[in-house]
């Protein structure tokens, strides 16, 4: 029996208005299913809509058509507030530009998601410290993002994404602003996440991102094709 489905996307369509002429269709009916423990890598040229797809799958942006379900629970028709709750329950994000809050310390950045979902208790703090330890940035816990290197910032961002142990992790060009060594650390962490039973979708340019992936898709012309 195959592992349970974490994400099912059917017929996703996303259009953006053009300065002149008809809207640009970035996603033209995308179907995707991701199971527990699966690492999915999505490749494609710049401007092909990879980030848009990730935003739509992560409920950061609404699709113009199509349906998204987390497990058995379909969320496309939910209102803004309910979608916010589902994001907090199901998803973790790793962004290319880290998106740490500049006024918070590394530890507080890791705890940020918990602040809005589960609440910050002693157990969360202990787990946040454990994650910072595991990713080699524990001694930087009281530093602000401006005092951290790019690699350190992305490791902190990774800790933030997995603190609540979300069933699905979405990573948008997570190595885009990192050198090879730090990029390698992040990619390995994503693979570890999948090996530990989490579902992971990675959008990346790096050829080595696909190493160890269960499925590699190419997004082109608004559709996904398995490589």
């Amino acid at each position, binding site marked *: 029996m195959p592992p349970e489905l974490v994400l099912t996307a059917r017929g996703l369509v996303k259009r953006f208005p053009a300065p002149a002429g008809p809207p640009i269709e970035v996603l033209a009916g995308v179907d995707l299913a991701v199971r527990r423990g699966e690492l999915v890598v999505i490749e494609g040229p710049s401007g092909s809509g990879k980030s848009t797809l990730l935003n739509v799958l992560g409920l950061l*942006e609404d699709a113009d058509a199509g349906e998204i379900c987390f497990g058995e629970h379909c969320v496309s028709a939910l209102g803004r*507030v309910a979608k*916010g709750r589902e*994001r907090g329950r199901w998803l973790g994000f790793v962004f290319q530009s880290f998106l740490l*809050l500049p006024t918070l310390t590394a530890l507080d950045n890791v705890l*940020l998601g918990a602040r809005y979902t589960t609440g910050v208790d002693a157990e969360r703090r202990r787990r946040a410290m454990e994650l910072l330890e595991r990713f080699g940035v524990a001694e930087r816990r009281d530093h602000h993002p401006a005092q951290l290197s790019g690699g350190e910032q992305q490791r902190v961002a990774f800790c933030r994404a997995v603190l609540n142990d979300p069933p699905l992790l979405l990573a948008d060009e997570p190595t885009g602003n990192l050198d090879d060594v730090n990029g390698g650390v992040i990619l390995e962490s994503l693979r570890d996440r999948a090996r530990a039973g989490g579902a992971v979708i990675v959008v990346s340019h790096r050829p080595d991102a696909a190493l160890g992936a269960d499925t590699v898709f190419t997004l082109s012309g608004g559709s996904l094709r398995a490589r």
Partner: protein
Amino acid sequence: MAERIVRFIEGGDRFVLGQISVAGRGMGMGAGFTAGGLLPAAAIEAIRKVDGVSVVQPQVMLPLNPSTSQFMTLTQELVLGMDLSVPSPNRHYRMLPVQDGRFLRQGDRRKAVVGASFATSRGLRPGSRLELEGQPYEVVGVLERMLTAPDRFVIVSIEDARDQWVSKDRLLRTVLASGGVALRAQDLNTGAAVGWRETDDPDVVARRIRERVAGVNVQLPSELSSLLRQSTAFFSALLVGLGLLAFVIGGLSLANTVAAAVFERIRDFGVKRALGATDWQLGREILGEALAVTLSGGAVGVVLALALGLGIDGWARRSGQQLFLFSPRLLGGALVFSLLLGAAAAAYAAVRIVRLSPAEAIRRGSAA
């Protein structure tokens, strides 16, 4: 400053609504609310007999310095002579409040009670000497600051005021010296304050006096109140308008600062929503920050205004003036106003932000 003018009008209003003011018909030396001609003793006796009248206090009210420049001022310095054998008919001021010393007693001669501004401008206190029309007076009391006309009064017995009147008014002196008119000392009144019985309507009693006593000008309390308001309406409206304008400009800059501070962090709010923050959580957060900013901004503004206003008043007090009044309602109102504007700005910014998708908020914030 607008608050100060408003208090001035309120004080005057309270005074004129507490009594019926009667003056002799025609023109004479009488000033203030007794402006008009002579009000002889016979007229005062006739007023006493009018149905509804409870008490009549003859008064002499004169300009302290009858020069053009003094007549031009809004707050003229006046000498008020009161018949101390009669209790004050004014319902709102049975006794003018004394800050230091005592009020006049029946039989006091060459004694004066002075208003707070008058005392400050001349450095007077109980025991000080004051010269009026060449006669020395002892200051026996200083009134509390009332922020209205009595602040610039010199109150003496009616007998002393009559002496000053004769001394000031050359025409009156000539008439008296000629012996052509039969005038006794008690005929020298510029007006009278009239009280009414508890069960009567003051305007009805005033109309009755007007009908039954010849040769008098009777001011209906409600009419006088309306006249007082009309005469100060322009300044009052101007200052209230300026005050409101300052409120709105200051308030809008505060609101703009709050909204700009929120929009500046649009990317952070996008990230927070991506991590599961709901609209309510963000709204509460933005509102809390905005209220903290506006409350502290409002408090700093109030402290600065107090410091500046009190500094200017300290300087103006040397000439017996008080330009500003920082009443609790004004200070409280300023703080509440800034809080409301801050809350409105925060609500506007919060609604704008949560209407954006998290992806759009992050995009806009990253592009800025």
